């Protein structure tokens, strides 16, 4: 049986876990194609009006999978960290998909909530396994393997600073290995921290190749995904209130950490148009950074329009600002 995983949203975080888990249970995992014009168009046409771009893109990826798989994996994600939440659109995602897209294969939509404690991940895995008709020991085994693999991948990513970027059809997970990387470019003149939701930063189509473009301009790019978790928590502690959105916490936590511990030359915030948390986080960042011009700060709003010229102009000007301030 083939299980389809849409190459969107939390794919950029949990794909190594999901892939290993399903494969250990004996399934073939099929990824949707990297985001392209057709996927975006399909997504725009099928999604309810008031959704944000990443949700629309997700819809497009589900459509891409329809004829290729026997089931699509769309977990109902409520929380991935104790006492924190993920965007409410993730919670309703399986329902949105079922109501908006016709002729769907079966959807695996088991709930993931680690709000009480991290055991939520195991309960989530157990529910998926049970739904697919497996015994508890077998599910346990697959879960253990997936967790080990996921933790190993995460360590690799942080130790070697591997950005979870896909390349062509290849997923970031396939590409991540210690030897393939760390060809650190010494020609980099500046270091820039890019913050934002992983699915906005790493989807090369949606972000209009933001990372590659900055790298071509001589910038070393770092993101919250390659920063040790404890540093992010360290930074997040400086806020006067606990942030209960996991992804926003990563954005603000890593920014605050670097503001205190120096050695970056600028910050780019990628926000998707219409995102509630992003609008608040963006404002907080702007107040912190722009008021006394501590660091060059660029805010990029992504939406479905694809005019790249204005986007390039901003990036180039941003790098010029960094250069000029040196």
């Amino acid at each position, binding site marked *: 049986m083939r299980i389809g995983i849409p190459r969107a949203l939390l794919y950029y975080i949990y794909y190594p876990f999901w892939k290993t888990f399903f494969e250990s249970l004996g399934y073939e995992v099929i990824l949707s194609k990297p985001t*392209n014009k057709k996927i975006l168009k399909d997504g725009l046409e099928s999604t309810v009006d008031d959704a944000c771009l990443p949700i629309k893109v997700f819809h497009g990826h589900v459509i891409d999978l329809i004829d290729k798989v026997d089931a699509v994996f769309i977990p109902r994600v409520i929380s991935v960290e104790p006492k924190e939440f993920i965007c409410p659109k993730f919670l309703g995602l399986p329902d949105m998909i079922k109501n908006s897209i016709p002729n769907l294969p079966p959807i695996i939509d088991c709930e993931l909530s680690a709000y009480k404690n991290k055991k939520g991940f195991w309960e989530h895995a157990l529910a998926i396994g049970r739904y697919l008709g497996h015994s508890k020991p077998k599910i346990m085994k697959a879960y253990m393997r997936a967790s080990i693999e996921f933790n190993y991948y995460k360590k690799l990513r942080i130790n070697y600073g591997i950005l979870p970027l896909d390349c062509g059809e290849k997923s970031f997970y396939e590409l991540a290995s210690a030897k393939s990387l760390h060809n650190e470019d010494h020609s980099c003149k500046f270091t820039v921290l890019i913050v934002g939701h992983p699915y906005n930063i790493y989807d090369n189509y949606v972000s209009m190749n933001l990372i590659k473009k900055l790298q071509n301009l001589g910038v070393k790019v770092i993101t919250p995904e390659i920063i040790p978790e404890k540093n992010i928590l360290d930074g997040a502690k400086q806020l006067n209130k606990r942030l209960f959105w996991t992804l926003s916490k990563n954005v603000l936590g890593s920014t605050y950490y670097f503001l205190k511990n120096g050695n970056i030359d600028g910050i780019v915030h990628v926000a998707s148009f219409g995102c509630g948390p992003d609008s608040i986080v963006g404002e907080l960042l*702007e107040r912190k950074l722009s008021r006394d*011009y501590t660091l*060059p700060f660029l805010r990029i709003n992504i939406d479905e329009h694809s005019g790249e010229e204005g986007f390039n102009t*901003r990036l180039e*000007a941003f790098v*010029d600002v960094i250069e000029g301030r040196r």
Partner: protein
Amino acid sequence: MRCYLGIDVGSVSTNFALIDEDGQMLKKLYIRTAGKPIEAITNGLKMIQENFKDNIEIMGVGTTGSGRKLAAVIVGADVVKNEITAHAAACIAEYPNVQTILEIGGQDSKIIILRNGVVVDFAMNTVCAAGTGSFLDRQAQRLGIPIEQFGDIALRSKNPTRIAGRCAVFAESDMIHKQQMGYKVEDILKGLCQALVRNYLANVAKGKEIKPPVVFQGGVAANSGIKKAFEEELGVDIIVPKYFDVMGALGAAILAKKFMSQNKYIKTKFLGFEAALREHTAESFECQGCPNLCEIIQIYEDKKLIARWGDRCGRWSESIAV
């Protein structure tokens, strides 16, 4: 005479600035792009050559504006810079202590914040072009007023009416409504100026600290009504530089001059004025390589392919050495 050329290819106008080695303006050109950037560029080159014949030697070329890549390919450029850096460079050269630059062009508007002669922050209008030159052009045309007189007429107003400036479409219907109600043209124009300034300050300049000296440049700076509205809203004097309409081109020329003086052993890439005589054409096709269906633009010089862009993956653009 040795000089440097700056070219700014914008959506509405294509501008040229020719400066000498001391940075003094020798010649400026403001040509309407009229949707044909290639023609505008070659026409500009011809005009400069006719004007100076063989008395000048181009030592360096800089291009900027949304058509900077195109201009660089046709003319041969040493520096290809974004508009923000170019505008800032031109302004700093004239006003070294400027702290805020307001720039409103044909289809975009920007704010540039400088401290101690260095750009520290900037913003550009995002999806909306309300309040830029092309909108003013259109409204002036609709009211039957030459755009050059727009500002002076607006200044005559004593009781400006309030126009919704959030969106060009709504602003237009608001204006039509006010006309039907019997408001005077000057009051409507002044109201429009105020609305555009409000919109600019609320969108583009949102959250930015506007400190004097404030310089206002770009084609719209010709409009004294807008300048006045800015002064009233900000409570500071607004400086409009002498070459306000070609500041981008001037900046590009200054950057080219700077670049060449830092790289003394590099010869300019300028292709010569003959470039203008060659025939340049652009063609486009849709790449069928993947579902992205990118539109690829190909630039030909006398039937020889000289540049290609528009693809996301680099399949076409990287297969030709520019």
